[in-house]
């Protein structure tokens, strides 16, 4: 069964079978405002925790979205190329950003659960 984690950088991860689907939280998309472009990662790219994985661009500004854990990109949400506003309308669903194969599942232990994230954003 999939388990969902959160980061203090306002990302969510849904982990199932060693693969994490990653996106930004609803709170984050509200802060960013209307997105007009998402720079997607290359498949196969290896990332360490904290590396920039994706850049999301609103009308006003570009913001980095970091890899929450180590791993390798297995898929990018290409539907965002034609409709970046999916991140605004469905941040935790169809607006997911990328999938990655986890290099070190123990890193998940350092992440927040939903209650912890809610407390973090106050």
């Amino acid at each position: 069964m999939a388990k969902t984690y959160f980061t203090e950088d306002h990302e969510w991860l849904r982990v199932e079978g060693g693969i994490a689907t990653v996106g930004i939280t609803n709170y984050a998309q509200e802060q960013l405002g209307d997105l007009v472009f998402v720079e997607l990662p290359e498949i196969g790219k290896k990332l360490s925790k904290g590396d920039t994985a994706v850049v999301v661009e609103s009308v006003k500004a570009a913001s980095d979205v970091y890899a929450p854990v180590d791993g390798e990109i297995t898929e990018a949400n290409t539907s965002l190329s034609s409709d970046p506003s999916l991140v605004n309308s469905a941040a935790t669903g169809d607006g997911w950003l990328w999938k990655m194969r986890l290099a070190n599942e123990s890193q998940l232990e350092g992440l927040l659960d939903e209650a912890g994230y809610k407390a973090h954003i106050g």
Partner: protein
Amino acid sequence: MTDDDTRHLPLEDLHTAAGARFGAFAGWSMPLTYPAGVMKEHLHTREHAGLFDISHMKLFEVSGPGATALLNRACPLDAGALDISQSKYTFFLNEAAGVIDDLIVTRLGDERFMVVANAGNAVTDEKHLRALAEDFDAKVDALDCVFLAIQGPEAWAALARAGIETGSLLFMHGIEPRQNWFMSRSGYTGEDGFEIGLPEADARDLVAKLLEDERVLWIGLAARDSLRLEAGLCLHGQDITPEIDPASAGLMWAIPKDVRAAGHFVGADALRAVLERGPAQKRVGLKPEGRQPVRAGAALFDADGNPAGHVATGGFGPSAGHPVAMGYVQTALAKPGTKLFADVRGTKIPIEINPLPFTPHRYRKG
């Protein structure tokens, strides 16, 4: 700057009640967006009427027998040639002809003018103007008022419904319709619209009336920026700075020919020298290929990879439907249609010189 120095709008409570998201701009806490979001706010302004709180901007009244002469010294302007109620876009220049600030000067009477300046430069402007005023028989008063802009094709109708007739007022004209009010038909969105300086109590009354009208929506600073960028209008500090002269900025239309030739304004000699040799760089519109915005600071290159200039303002144009930008390129590359490349995080994005504005101006000129 510490939090304590942040200035707050007199109508901040109204913005909070309207659900505004605030951010810092030029030392002020300003509404950036409202719940509708920047995209809808932008499009609403172009289709209906957007209400902006621009009380961070500064109004100066310049008056006295030497007011005209003072402004002719402070700005590349023939203040005496302005009709009463006529407004003019102009500048304070430094001795090197760099733009200290861009302004709108309106003649209110024979010896009375209103000067509207940018928030970020208000302190510098006031100091500059007061220092120059010492040589003239003129008085500079910094006004303390709420300043609202209402912009868009339905702005005039919304004001009429709120009891303010604008019928005979044309673009780039300003009047004093009531005591301690200043209203001009102008703005910074490319649309027909008005800017109104007025006492806080009157402002609260006017805002309440305007917001009863479903054609009127509060619009934040984020959409104000995308609107002015599409309209090809410069933001001081970004597209024009004390290091950039009006010729490089493509703003010589604002300086009458006889003033260029014979004016005694600060920076006149330096500006004439620039005009004589021709500016080395020019401000241009830039249209990136594809969907990815190209932002301020991005370096521009020609087809052979040689440096060509830089982006000064960049973002997305909700009405244009594509990314839009302005920047500076070497004069030889400034022709519309010229293809360049912008470096965005290491990727070269094709970008083309585009005529300005990106969306046509719809001013009410007559």
